[in-house]
């Protein structure tokens, strides 16, 4: 009984952590290339709506996923245009994108479906179902390991496995590929990259596009993967900012991003089920404190009292070619 309860919390931890992780890695690509992105929230929201709306219309969650990615990419393009091409303020652009998504999703949802800013309930092929990994059923009765495999590791949607796969992938791309090296260089010292004859603008747009794709998947996970069944107004509920916090908490590194997202996911999972915590640990937790904890932890990290978080050096600064 104890084990099952703990596994249940860990299970919902993984589920809550997934959109955070995808958005966090999205932010990682963008910020390591020197483009601050506080518009993660908006992109996720737009993608959540795009995915749910198109999945509801076509009945196919895969087409929905691509629509979600498309919606997120469009906002990425605006952000890229504003902050790379026109050298505008990246933070202001991010703020604008968040509001744009918050407003547009409801306006379009109301015009398409007329249900007060939500999409119709998704079911069947309209959403991602859980995948049972091989032997999960047969191994279920093996003590301890069986339930862990069955409850925790197996039975998630494909997007969750994809998100977890993205961590080593991101790490590999950033640390071991030519593209990754250049991407990091463009975030630290763009003029050096420019001198080497590599396009700063091109690299930054590539980073912003990757960010858009990942945010798109994060949004799709939020709205179309079980147990979610559609889009509701403001459904990201600050997750984009928690992802941003997780990114700083992880000091812009992929493996740490996984850990910090799991930590923040755990906090969310506990906040949803305070009764379980009481059952397992025997004490009550303050729900509002749990809500605030990711932000408090991030401020402490930012303050540099527990290891300093140093952002990419050229972050937030538009690159001007010297003449």
């Amino acid at each position, binding site marked *: 009984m104890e084990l099952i309860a703990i596994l249940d919390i860990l299970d919902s931890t993984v589920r809550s952590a997934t959109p955070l992780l995808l958005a966090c890695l999205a932010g990682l690509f963008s910020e390591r290339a020197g483009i601050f992105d*506080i518009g993660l929230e908006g992109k996720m929201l737009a993608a959540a709506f795009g995915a749910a709306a198109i999945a509801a219309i076509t009945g196919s969650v895969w087409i929905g996923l691509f629509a979600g990615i498309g919606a997120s990419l469009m906002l990425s393009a*605006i952000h890229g*245009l*504003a*902050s790379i091409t*026109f*050298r*505008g*303020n*990246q*933070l*202001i*652009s991010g*703020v*604008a*994108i*968040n*509001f*744009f998504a*918050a*407003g*547009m999703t*409801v*306006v*379009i949802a*109301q*015009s398409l479906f*007329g249900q007060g*800013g939500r999409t119709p309930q998704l079911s069947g092929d309209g959403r991602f179902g859980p995948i049972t990994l091989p032997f999960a059923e047969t191994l279920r009765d093996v003590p301890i390991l069986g339930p862990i495999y069955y409850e925790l590791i197996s039975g998630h949607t494909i997007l969750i496995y994809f998100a977890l796969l993205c961590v080593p992938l991101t790490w590999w791309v950033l640390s071991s590929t030519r593209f990754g090296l250049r991407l990091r260089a463009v975030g630290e010292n763009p003029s050096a990259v420019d001198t080497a004859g590599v396009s700063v603008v091109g690299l930054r747009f590539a980073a912003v596009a990757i960010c858009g794709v990942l945010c798109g998947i994060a949004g799709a996970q939020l709205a179309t993967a079980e147990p979610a069944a559609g889009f509701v*107004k403001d459904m990201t509920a*600050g997750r984009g*900012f928690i992802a*941003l*916090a997780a990114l*700083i908490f992880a000091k812009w590194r992929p493996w740490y991003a996984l850990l910090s997202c799991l930590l923040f996911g755990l906090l969310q999972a506990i906040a949803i089920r305070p009764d379980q915590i009481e059952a397992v640990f025997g004490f009550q937790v*303050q729900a*509002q*404190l749990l*809500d*605030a904890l990711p*932000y*408090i932890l*991030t*401020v402490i990290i*930012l*303050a*540099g009292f527990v290891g300093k978080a140093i*952002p990419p050096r050229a972050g937030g600064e538009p690159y001007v070619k010297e003449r």
Partner: protein
Amino acid sequence: MKKMPKWADVVLIPLISLLLAAFFSGLVIWAIGENPIEALQIMIKGATGSTYAWGYTLYYATNFIFTGLAVSVAFHARLFNIGGEGQAMLGGLGVALACLFIPWPHWGLALVGASIGGALFGVAWAIVPAFLQAKRGSHIVITTIMFNFMAAALLNYLLIGLLKPKGSMDVATAKFPEATHLPNIHEILGVVGIPFSKATPANISLLIGMAACVALWALIWHTRLGYEIRSFGRSEPAAKYAGINRTKIIIVAMMISGGLAGMMAVNNVMGEAERLVLNAVEGAGFIGIAVALMGRSHPFGVFLAAILFGFLYQGGAELAFATSIPREMIVVIQSLVILFTGAFDNMVRAPVEKLFMKFQRPSQSALVE
């Protein structure tokens, strides 16, 4: 390189940005199958057609004056305070505590006390990010965002628990005592015999907001501190060379900013709701960003931009009432204004500058000859 005339920078560029935002908003309205012209007419009538409409427009505008000024002060020191929302929430708490727990004999005294309470709480919420920026180099944008969420959690906690009166089902404090009731515009104009709708929440805080505009203008352009803030914002190394204390400027600018955001609560908490409810700020802190950008961080510009956004808010509410366009359309318009006046500033500016260059050159060369 010759610069374009000042009026172009102050009037023409914001106007072009605004027209772009309006154009795209119209496009959105058209795309969802409504008539943009008709929508504009409904908004104009709904926001300016009667004293009732004006009352709401001015009430919203008062909120935006405070948050707009708050963002502007920080902008002058090249600090981006996204925390107006949280600071205004905390300001609400300060105002509520002042109104609930001090037995004020007269609204005038209550107004002073509540303003101080609101401002102090707003300052308290701004000073930590300011200190962390000045002393620890933590990016103020990120910390103020984090403080917004912390403020929401704190208010949630207090309004569900400690501050909720016994037996009440609402997530709100008790009603403020009668003595803290602020005179509304109807009562003020009634003194000089001008009729005004009774049913609107516009109140005396509008005058405080206008006074704050004047005070801030004087502070920024006619005091030593204002000069220091502006120099610091223009060039940090130059300010340092001139002996301006970096820590002091960051902290003081953010304190003024937080205090102004906190004072917004006098309007919405004390003047309108007369109790503290959950989410009393309703995004006004974020609209302050749009207002400050639109108003070019100048108090008079902020005042005009705040009226414009008050118009958008009241007009948008009427629009949602009269058509199938949801209220969120205001958020879209707001985002487009931020986008075009803020992020795409260079896109608008460059062609205008080029145009001025083109027309200036012949006359200048003629002068040289």
